[in-house]
């Protein structure tokens, strides 16, 4: 069908706690010609305090975010979902989106009682333009110019890349401007490095990635750290037992012949090296993969393709060794504790089918009827998100006691220890810090400080009243 390029501007970087303020998307055909676009904004949710850096970066004064003529967050998310569903199936692309925008979108959908995985289901695929431009820097000839920042280092920031490559970028950190710049950068790669573009498109499909890494004796995995690309010939040794979409690969830069003779303890010590000979990636995160026969020499890290393929085949054929490698690697992994906040638990299990049905019914019901649906959720995440949603959208239909409990809980969060949402104390401290740096050129921060002080005072009075 198409590509859908999208971007979000948010109140901060904390997924699950910060919210989307501005969402923009452009649908293109397979040749990256625009065929449609969509934008949506929302006002601030009452329980969210924007990080002052986000306000400054986005050029958004607090009074604009509290403008009651803007749609509510719930209304915006509903519009986003309807539009993206109507454009599905598609390949969803953003700039640094796999780690950020996709996460913000998933949390927004989930907390508005919609299925979270829109861009990974309905036959959709997803990919990240940042990994494309970083991969582009590793091919020759490079299709893009990578600029140098003020500190003399190469940078892959969107606004700098756009400027260096004569790509129009009307306003940095405006969602639609960012989307359009991303489309243009992708078009440059599409036109100048067609092979790279094909791999990018091909491995946006999770099933294709799974099939490729399982079928191939080996391949090159490219990872990015500190804005540098690192290529390693690897062979897949199995699925990550803790993560269905996770794959574990063995680097072929090491002599693999000795591994079979190691004891379990020796294997664990070997795999604990930094960097580990075991590389991990997710099949649903559009990893950067290259078949050996497509890989230029510099990707093979000095090895000959024949030797590397032989090593890969030996590992692949040794099922016992693969099993032992996975077990040794997993044995050294610390268990993931359950996050303390419900907002952080999006990946701690799917809602059951009954709750999915209730969530669907919620959106079809009228506000007075929604409370009974929310109260019937078995999943405590959905129950809390549903109650909170009703409080924001239609608190008049809530019984007094329910309403008071929600208010108490929200007040506690905003006065908490900062491990969850941004609190009054932290927001004020960060704002003062930025003001102290002379970073307030247009009064956005000073007006935000006044807003915070006012809300903080009212919240303190409210909490004092609750204690009585």
């Amino acid at each position: 069908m198409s590509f859908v390029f999208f971007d979000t501007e948010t109140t901060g970087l904390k997924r699950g706690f910060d919210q989307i303020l501005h969402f923009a998307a452009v649908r293109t055909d397979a040749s990256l010609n625009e065929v449609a676009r969509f934008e949506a904004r929302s006002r601030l949710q009452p329980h969210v305090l924007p990080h002052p850096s986000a306000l400054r970066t986005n050029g958004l004064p607090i009074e604009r975010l509290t403008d009651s003529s803007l749609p509510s967050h719930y209304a915006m998310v509903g519009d986003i979902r309807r539009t993206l569903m109507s454009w599905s199936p598609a390949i969803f692309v953003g700039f640094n989106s796999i780690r950020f925008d996709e996460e913000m979108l998933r949390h927004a959908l989930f907390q508005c009682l919609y299925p979270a995985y829109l861009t990974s289901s309905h036959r959709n695929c997803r990919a990240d333009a940042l990994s494309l431009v970083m991969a582009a820097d590793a091919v020759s000839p490079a299709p893009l110019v990578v600029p140098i920042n003020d500190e003399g280092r190469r940078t892959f920031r969107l606004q700098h890349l756009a400027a260096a490559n004569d790509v129009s970028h009307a306003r940095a950190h405006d969602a639609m401007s960012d989307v359009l710049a991303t489309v243009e950068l992708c078009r440059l790669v599409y036109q100048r490095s067609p092979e790279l573009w094909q791999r990018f498109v091909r491995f946006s499909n999770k099933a294709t990635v799974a099939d490729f890494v399982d079928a191939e004796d080996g391949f090159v995995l490219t990872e990015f750290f500190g804005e540098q690309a690192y290529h390693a010939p690897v062979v897949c040794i199995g699925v990550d037992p803790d993560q269905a979409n996770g794959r574990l690969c063995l680097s072929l830069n090491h002599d693999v012949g000795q591994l079979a003779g190691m004891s379990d303890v020796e294997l664990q010590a070997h795999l604990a090296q930094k960097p580990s000979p075991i590389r991990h990636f997710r099949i649903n995160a559009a990893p950067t993969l290259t078949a050996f026969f497509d890989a230029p020499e510099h990707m093979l890290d000095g090895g000959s393709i024949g030797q590397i393929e032989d090593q890969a085949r030996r590992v692949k054929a040794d099922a016992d060794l693969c099993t032992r490698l996975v077990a040794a690697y997993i044995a050294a992994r610390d268990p993931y504790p359950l996050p303390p906040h419900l907002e952080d638990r999006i990946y701690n299990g799917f809602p059951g089918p009954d709750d999915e049905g209730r969530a669907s019914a919620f959106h079809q019901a009228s506000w007075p009827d929604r409370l009974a649906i929310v109260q019937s959720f078995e999943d405590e995440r959905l129950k809390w998100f549903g109650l909170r949603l009703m409080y924001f959208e239609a608190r008049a239909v809530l019984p007094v006691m329910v309403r008071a409990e929600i208010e108490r809980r929200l007040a506690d969060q905003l006065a908490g220890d900062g491990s969850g949402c941004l609190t009054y104390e932290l927001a004020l401290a960060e704002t003062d810090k930025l003001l102290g740096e002379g970073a307030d050129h247009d009064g956005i921060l000073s007006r935000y400080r006044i807003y915070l002080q006012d809300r903080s005072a009212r919240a303190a009075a409210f909490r004092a009243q609750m204690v009585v």
Partner: protein
Amino acid sequence: MADADPERARASARSILREYGVSAPPVPVERIIKSRKIVLQYAPLDEDLSGMAYIKDGVGIIGVNALHHPNRQRFSAAHELAHHMLHASEISQAVHVDKGIRVLFRDDVSALGTEPMEIEANAFASELLIPGDLLAAALEGGGVDLEDEAAIEALARRFRVSPAAMRFRLTRW
């Protein structure tokens, strides 16, 4: 074109397999395509579009739907390779677009002008991806019950094709 000649198509597939020394499943269809200097392109196509074969500026191109399952992608790629190998004159005049599963397993002559090309391409793809000699080796001289879902799926997985494609191939065994 004239009536379909599926045996010619299968012979062409076997010739390629010999040329590349393919001795074990799965057949590396992507590598074969690229080795023949044909450009393999993935794109998010309409759901009912499985592949395209055309020649642009003298370069052979195969388009594959990036959103499809990899087994289907592989079959589509092999199918489009057939058009390049067997129907170069026809596809040089227009983009040849293949839709859906509709044509995959038809083996009767049709009134539609492109149907014989489809029959040949399907025969080619089936032989390329599931070579007779490799299938025989996998079966170790025995047969397989077409109703045995687990056995069919295991074979399909080994050859990286769909169970439906494997079942169809076995009907000609």
